[in-house]
């Protein structure tokens, strides 16, 4: 059992890094608590696999420390770390049977055969692989293979964390869901820390209690799926989480008015004060498409926008609008009529986020 702490961790693949862009992982501090189900979410190339490989010991970080229960493990190789890892493509030992595959990590450390049998049967039962035990692993389907590679992590008593590197990439959609539920079940039963790397927000939010969103080598937000949705800490989290992503306006404050380019935005006094006080030229207002109020007729405090087109997605529609020069999207439920030509928008104050230099700033609405 372990709590994994990353202390001032940074990593670069270059021998002579000069700017922050040269780092795959920029200096970060992070704690994965014992027994948690975590997701590491981010686009391709944001450094999430690098981070995973540093935790498992396949990579040694350029600077900073990896601590397991407070003990520095930087120099320990993967075989010394009590960590299991499941890779994007199922790794199985082709010539062995499923049973031998599952027994492999135990036999490598000379576990008595009776104990091996006991553990293998237990894990096979949980993973629903009992019927396949005598088959050659090579002839299994992709999802069964992925279960076998997961099982090799589970059979070990000493494993304190299992790391998943986009494990469902090669699995059929309907099986993905089943396997994800299985993962959740295993997590509850074994109380193992699980870190799950993915670029799919749905996968992340169904699996994890808390999600770390990574962007350009940094964890920009660590929170529950709800927190990521309602109060994104960084504009990237706003874009990346939610479908479609958050709307952002480059705003400025002039002559007592809040302007997005040349269009005045109608916002409450709290938001106005916050924008006025911002000490930067990079100020953005963000609002989720779900929270944009769309009216067909003019309303008090409504901003007139052009309706460009709408996309009917069954239970809801996405309306593509243009407010002045800024495009934005709004999500409206199926019982509401889609406006034609013009629409009148309102942004509820408590749903607006203010971003100065891409990071969220709290707004005092009083």
């Amino acid at each position, binding site marked *: 059992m372990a709590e994994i702490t990353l202390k001032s961790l940074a990593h670069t693949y270059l021998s002579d890094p000069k700017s922050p862009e040269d780092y795959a992982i920029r200096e970060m501090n992070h704690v994965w608590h014992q027994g948690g189900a975590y997701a590491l979410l981010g686009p391709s190339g944001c450094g999430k696999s690098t981070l995973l*490989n540093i935790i*498992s010991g*396949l990579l040694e970080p350029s600077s900073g420390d990896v601590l397991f229960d407070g003990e520095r493990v930087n120099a320990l*190789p*993967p*075989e010394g770390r009590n*960590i*299991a*890892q499941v*890779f*994007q*493509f199922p*790794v199985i*030992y*082709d*010539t*062995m049977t499923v049973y031998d595959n599952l027994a*492999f*990590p135990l036999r*490598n*450390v000379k576990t008595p055969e009776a104990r091996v049998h006991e553990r293998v049967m237990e894990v096979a039962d949980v993973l629903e692989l009992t*019927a*396949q035990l*005598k*088959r*050659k692993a*090579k*002839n299994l389907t992709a999802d069964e293979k992925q279960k076998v*590679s997961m099982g*090799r*992590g589970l059979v070990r008593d000493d494993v304190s964390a299992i790391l998943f590197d986009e494990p469902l990439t090669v699995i059929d959609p309907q099986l993905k869901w089943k396997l994800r539920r299985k993962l959740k079940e295993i997590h509850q039963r074994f109380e193992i820390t699980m870190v799950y790397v993915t670029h799919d927000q749905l996968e992340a939010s169904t699996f994890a209690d808390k999600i770390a969103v990574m962007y350009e080598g940094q964890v920009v937000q660590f929170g529950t799926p709800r927190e990521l949705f309602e109060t994104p800490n960084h504009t990237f989290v706003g874009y990346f989480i939610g479908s479609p992503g958050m709307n952002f306006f480059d705003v400025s404050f002039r002559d007592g008015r809040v302007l997005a380019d040349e269009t005045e935005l109608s916002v409450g006094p709290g938001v106005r004060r916050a924008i006025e006080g911002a000490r930067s030229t990079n100020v953005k207002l963000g609002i989720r498409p779900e929270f944009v109020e769309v009216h067909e007729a003019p309303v008090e405090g409504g901003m007139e926008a052009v309706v460009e087109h709408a996309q009917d997605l069954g239970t809801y529609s996405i309306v593509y609008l243009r407010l002045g020069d800024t495009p934005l999207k709004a999500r409206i439920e199926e019982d509401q009529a889609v406006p034609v030509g013009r629409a009148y928008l309102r942004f509820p104050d408590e749903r607006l986020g203010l971003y100065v230099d891409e990071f969220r700033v709290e707004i005092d609405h009083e």
Partner: protein
Amino acid sequence: MNKVQNNRAWWLILPMLLLVAFSAIIPLMTVVNYSVQDVFDANTRFFTGAEWFKEMLNDPELHAAVLRQFAFSLTVLAIEVPLGIGIALLMPKKGWQASAVLILVTMPLLIPWNVVGSIWQIFTRGDIGLMGWSLRELGYGYNITASPVDAWVTIILMDVWHWTPLIALLCYSGLRSIPDAYYQAARIDRASKWAVFRFIQLPKLTNVLVIGVLLRFMHSFMIYAEPFVLTGGGPGSSTTFLSQSLTTMAIGQQDLGPSAAFSLIYFLIILLVSWVFYTAIMNMQKDNKKEGEA
């Protein structure tokens, strides 16, 4: 969609059939033709039936050549396959060293057979050959024209030198295609170096090794030019392999009937051994039927 039945479509395979006929079937049938007749000249021939085949199958000289041939092929396979795998494992994986080693290893494959024979002929000469001279200076009376053991060892050395690179090259490409995740998973599973070789590298090499072993078996079973140049089949007939016996019979003695029969037997042996080997390997990869149904 309606499927139209039109048997005239069979004509479309005619060009292929002609090509195969001229490249394989007709030449082979000529040999079959000779193998069942005794031909004296263009107008005089007798049908002999299975006579030549019986004679060949009972010829003690050919028995000896077949045994010698198997001994040779199995010996070179037993040396070249493990050695080739070993070399492939040791070869550098990237950088200029990889290219340099690759070129060095590949070199012997680019040399024509009879040139290889000539190189070794000179190499082993007692007066000017590096190997022959050195061994003699060291006090060993090395002489491939007098000692069958010396001749055998030299021919095997020569074949190993010439053809191990093929196995090494095939294995090298096979090893390169193993994703890193396998090695990483093995480390996490705490597998020993031997286990990594036995359960990851070797299984992933199976396919290239099947090709390699088949090629090497067929090649070595048909070996001709190199021993012919190096030892001429001697001393005595100690290094006379099948194709040399055949050439002597067909061209030296003009025994067309027996040599045709012998060619067919020779061909069938290669076909049979290759088929048995291939089937055995492919069966190893399947589930045991009974268990597979579980």
